[in-house]
């Protein structure tokens, strides 16, 4: 038997020729991260603009979801780590050139703040959900009892007094979190599909759009729904522009970028991307929302659900397709 030893840098399992290390955890996290960023952003933005009583759902009610989805995202991130028990080491350093460091710190700060924001609105939340399911009422009462404890109450009261400052901190962190979900991918300079500066803004806008969809789905006021319907339409328009811009940029670039773009322009992701994300996730909901603005009666859950499906699909496709693209030949 003759033995042959081949030494090559080209066959690295899971990394080369195609990356195969990110599964469902990362795109799921990117989705819930964007959604949470949007919920926190809208609540803080409309509070600062002084429209808290008018846009009740976005400022007071919908932010309850933010900590829940952030926790989901953090669980997904932990599951992705090879050594979950060492996650805390991310908090032993601050590195401005590392997107992971940015993300870890932003999440670390926004997590408690996103819990505190709805706690400052406990009275309103109780009032809003007074007719709902027994379990929900029990949960609200439980939280209310906890925050009424002697040593917690002054802290919550302090935050209620300083809600305006809290809103400013939240809005800045929310933008960082929203952009970061895109930067996490675009900082990978070895993967041409991800390595584009448009990805950060694109993920931010897409995340804001899913957040606006969630708020309009939860809202009970026609006026608030219409406002968020219009915000969402604007965001969809920007998103479509960014997507076109993304492909224009790739096609005007080198051959590796052109090859990356071709995955979506005739390659294996063509149908799922243009039909699943662009048509079903953006254009159809945009059309339904436009019809609603013109006075047609549209059940808001349909466009909202389509946008959320489009948002999650978009992230799964970007993560999957990005791992296939590469520089080396």
């Amino acid at each position, binding site marked *: 038997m003759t033995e042959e030893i081949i030494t090559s840098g080209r066959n690295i399992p899971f990394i080369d020729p195609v990356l195969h290390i990110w599964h469902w955890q990362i795109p799921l996290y990117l989705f819930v991260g964007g959604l949470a960023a949007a919920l926190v952003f809208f609540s803080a933005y409309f509070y600062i603009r002084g429209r808290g009583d008018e846009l009740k759902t976005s400022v007071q009610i919908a932010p309850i979801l933010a900590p829940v989805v952030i926790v989901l995202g953090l669980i997904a991130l932990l599951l992705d780590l090879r050594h979950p028990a060492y996650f805390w080491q991310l908090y032993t350093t601050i590195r401005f050139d590392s997107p992971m460091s940015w993300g870890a710190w932003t999440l670390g700060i926004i997590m408690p703040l996103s819990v505190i924001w709805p706690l400052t609105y406990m009275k309103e939340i109780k009032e809003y959900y007074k007719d709902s399911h027994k379990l929900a009422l029990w949960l609200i009462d439980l939280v209310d009892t906890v925050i009424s404890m002697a040593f917690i109450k002054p802290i919550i009261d302090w935050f209620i007094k300083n809600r305006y400052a809290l809103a400013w901190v939240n809005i800045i962190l929310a933008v960082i979190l929203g952009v970061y979900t895109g930067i996490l991918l675009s900082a990978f300079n070895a993967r041409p599909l991800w390595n584009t500066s448009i990805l950060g803004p694109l993920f931010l806008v897409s995340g804001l759009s899913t957040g606006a969809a969630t708020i309009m789905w939860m809202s009970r006021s026609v006026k608030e729904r*219409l406002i968020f319907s219009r915000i969402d339409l604007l965001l969809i328009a920007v998103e479509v522009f960014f997507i076109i811009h993304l492909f224009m940029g790739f096609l005007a670039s080198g051959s590796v970028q052109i090859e990356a773009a071709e995955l979506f322009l005739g390659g*294996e992701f063509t*149908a799922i991307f243009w*039909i699943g994300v662009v*048509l*079903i996730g953006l254009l*159809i909901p945009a*059309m*339904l929302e436009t*019809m609603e*603005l013109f*006075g*047609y*009666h*549209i*059940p808001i*859950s*349909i466009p909202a659900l389509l946008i959320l499906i489009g948002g999650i699909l978009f992230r799964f496709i970007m993560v999957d397709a990005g791992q296939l693209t590469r520089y080396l030949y």
Partner: protein
Amino acid sequence: MKNLKHRHTDPNKYMNPYVAGVLLGFVIIAAFFFSGEGLGGSGAFKDIVKTTVVTVAPDYAADTHYFKSATELAHSPLKTWLVFEVLGILLGGIISGAFAGRLKLKVEHAPNITSKKRIVYAVLGGALFGIGSQLGRGCTSGAGLSGMAVMSVSGFVAVAAIFGSGYLFAWFFRKLWI
């Protein structure tokens, strides 16, 4: 948006069935023109089933005559004209329902039965129709409409059989509707 008024369209107003039938004929012509294939409904669901089986139990699929062809494709079994056509039907239905003011999440049923009963019978009927369409090699649209459009005898036989047996069995299940 201040003078926004919600439109009041009569939700029960459907298109004249004869006009709709002629339009459906044009849809078949368009389908043949653009895709080179006719219309179909059950085929898309068959492809979904095939994809599911191939993904979940690839070994079983490779051993089974019915699923074998799906395992030998270079692309996903979902990549067929019918899957996209059915997706389009769904989206078109949402849009036309929205224009007609009929886009609502509800279960339509006869006054004498409950929604639950309606759903159970609809699922049962749908399953039977799915099995029947596979035995008959096509459903109302695939075998019937598209078959008749190309003057195939099987198309006429399929339509006669589907609607003929429909008339017969309707008598037994009339209580579900009146």
